[in-house]
């Protein structure tokens, strides 16, 4: 893979009047990387992308593409191509004209354009559809045309603004793989925006988790999932059970937390917060549903939780158990399905066990809205 062109955001602030849409963002995106911004709707993802593509001037800070400061350079002069949230295909142009619009601007002949359009149509698996109008294609096809149109401009950086959000689930999953494949084939930098953590995790080399204009964490998917920096990152990415409480004791990289409703529990301090949590601090610990196992009844200690099973759900590959812990605390448990070995617990009290390294403690903070 070629080295590619990187993108850097330096102390980037973007304000709309008094409203701060992006607060002091610092991001280094390597050339050739598939980088995602992941965050709930309205957190400022599109705003960042518009600043990179040149439609919006930062209030403060810099956008660097390939090490070059982009200040004062218009969108038509930047080596980026943006795939709009609503695709923005030109409705009156045929597909092949849409795809090769960037060539028309550069003065290419119709024959050259046709040829390139055919190559790109083959690549996006829509051969022979060049003479249709955008309105005659399905959502997924339009999606791919938008990608082809952007790629035709031969950008160094491709910017994608929630490109799959309008598609149905099946197609979305298919397009994930396809996008990743395309990225690896063309070898350019992709900056991808999504509010869907599944998309971010499956496709990205790196993910930036955003919350209300602030970037909480930048890391690869595994790290984000297993070692979140903040309560928001822990609760936004994947499903998690949260236990609130106070730090009771600090032991190296682990803390004992006196939880509000489930007794004293031990957890590993997330890497970014090690050495920063001290006794008496408000804290939160997160245990994923799949990190629990069912222990023999009567077992007790700082990594056991007792709960009463409300109901169970069979999902095929797993059983989801919805329990109610002490004080009405809801805990979700997910047990992989290995065949016949699972027994029904509805109405019973069970003891749940987890490994300390699978429970993450972070300072108390804002949680993602459900």
């Amino acid at each position, binding site marked *: 893979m070629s080295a590619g062109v990187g993108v850097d955001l330096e102390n980037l602030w973007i304000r709309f009047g008094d409203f701060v849409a992006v607060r002091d963002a610092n991001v280094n995106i390597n050339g050739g990387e598939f980088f995602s911004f992941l965050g709930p709707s309205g957190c400022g993802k599109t705003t960042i992308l518009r600043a990179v593509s040149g439609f919006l001037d930062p209030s403060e800070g810099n956008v660097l593409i390939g090490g070059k400061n982009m200040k004062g350079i218009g969108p*038509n002069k930047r080596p980026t191509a*943006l795939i709009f949230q609503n695709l*923005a295909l030109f409705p009156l142009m045929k597909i092949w004209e849409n795809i090769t619009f*960037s060539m028309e*601007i550069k003065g290419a002949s119709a024959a050259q354009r046709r040829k390139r359009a055919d190559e790109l149509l083959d690549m996006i698996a829509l051969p022979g*559809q060049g003479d249709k109008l955008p309105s005659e294609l399905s959502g997924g096809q339009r999606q791919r045309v938008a990608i082809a149109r952007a790629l035709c401009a031969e950008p160094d950086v491709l910017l994608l603004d929630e490109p799959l959000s309008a598609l149905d689930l099946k197609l979305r999953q298919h397009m994930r793989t396809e996008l990743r494949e395309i990225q690896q084939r063309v070898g350019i930098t992709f900056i991808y925006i999504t509010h869907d953590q599944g998309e971010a995790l499956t496709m990205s080399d790196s993910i930036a988790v955003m919350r209300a204009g602030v970037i909480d964490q930048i890391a690869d998917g595994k790290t984000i999932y297993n070692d979140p920096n903040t309560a928001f990152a822990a609760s936004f990415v994947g499903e998690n059970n949260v236990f609130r409480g106070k730090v009771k004791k600090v032991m190296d990289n682990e803390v004992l937390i006196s939880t509000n409703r489930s007794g004293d529990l031990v957890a590993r301090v997330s890497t970014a917060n090690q050495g920063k949590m001290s006794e008496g601090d408000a804290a939160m610990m997160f245990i994923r549903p799949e990190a629990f196992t069912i222990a023999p009844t009567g077992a007790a200690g700082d990594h056991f939780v007792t709960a009463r099973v409300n109901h169970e759900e069979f999902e095929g590959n797993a059983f989801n158990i919805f329990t109610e812990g002490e004080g009405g605390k809801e805990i979700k448990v997910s047990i992989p399905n290995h065949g016949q070995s699972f027994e029904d617990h509805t109405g019973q009290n069970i003891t749940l066990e987890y490994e300390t390294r699978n429970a993450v403690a972070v300072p108390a903070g804002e949680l993602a809205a459900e």
Partner: protein
Amino acid sequence: MNTSFLRISIWVYLAIFFAYLLGPLVIMSVTAFNSSGFPRMSPWECLTFQWFGELFQDQRILNGIKNSLIIGAGTVALSVAMGLAGALMLTQIWPKLRATYYTIIIAPILIPGVVLGISTLVFWDRINRMLGLGADSFLSNGIFLTVIGQSTFIASYCMLVLVARLQRYDMALTEAALDLGATHAQAFRKIMLPFMRPAIASAAVLAFLASFENYNTTTFTFGEYPTLTIELAQKVRYGITPAISALAFIIVALTVFFALLNEAKLKRQELVAAARKEATVEELAGKIKLPSFFAGNMAAVLLVVFAVATITVVGTATAYNPAQCIADVREQKQLEAEQRIQELRKQREERRKQQEAQEAEQGEAQSAPKPSNNSGFGNVFAPNSLGGDGDDGASDTESEPSNNSGFGGVFDPNSLQSDQ
């Protein structure tokens, strides 16, 4: 019972409504083909096309049409450009100012055309003088002033049409074009302008029609370049001939033609779009099967009927010679006139006898000719039978035969001559 009554009243209402709406146009169109020297439908004399010939020999009308076309073209160019600029401005302007801006830019529509005409004249005259130019300068030229004056409010109409379309424009399309390397000018020309094209065409047609029919503003600004409406207004002052009906007929026919053409085109696009949507991928990849122009296209059928009718009429017009008919009518009229003279003579004879018999009562003698007043040719002689009472009625009756009800003041002298 109740519903059928309702249905019948709806039909009656519709009939009255359309008769009210279209009746005058139909009647005027028909009078263009009647050889009678005054535009009228009855009595029908002869089918003739002479009024069309006369129309195209009338230099003032032709000159008026020419001026109207020149001014119309100028107004279209200026109004559409200004309307588009205004519409674009509306989408760009700070949202809080939008309502105010809209009101200001729409205001000219509400201002009476007369005021616009006078103010245009006064304003440009001022400017002309400030620049120290003479009365023959470009700024006081009738065409310039009329285009400027009409555009003051026609541009607002155009803007309304264009804004409606512009509101459906996705600004992301312009951004996408910029993002793909286009300059702002290219994005405008290649993306926004094609999107606006249908609305621009509508605005242009609207502007042209508004300019063509305008009188209020133009009457102050036309200078040495009277438009068709101005010419017509001046002509009517000296009496109206069926040549004007012929002009009206041509305008009506052209309107119907273009309306049908437009309708047929739209319908066709619709059908093609539907066909493309229904077609499978393979069909499209191979060869698209377009529906024939006429399938399910009522307007297209009517258009063809219209075209055939036009060809027939033009063909008939070139071959047809109404001279014989006109001569017959003339003869007929002469015969009738003579007959009447005979009758009158007889009546007078009788009356004289009666007068001799009862000298005191003259009122009775007057009421006798009145009943013949209302029908067809009969009325022609009626007024004279009174006026010519007592002296040489024969010559009198012959000099005023075409005096008919309603238009008494503006009759055409032609029919007088044909009667003799």
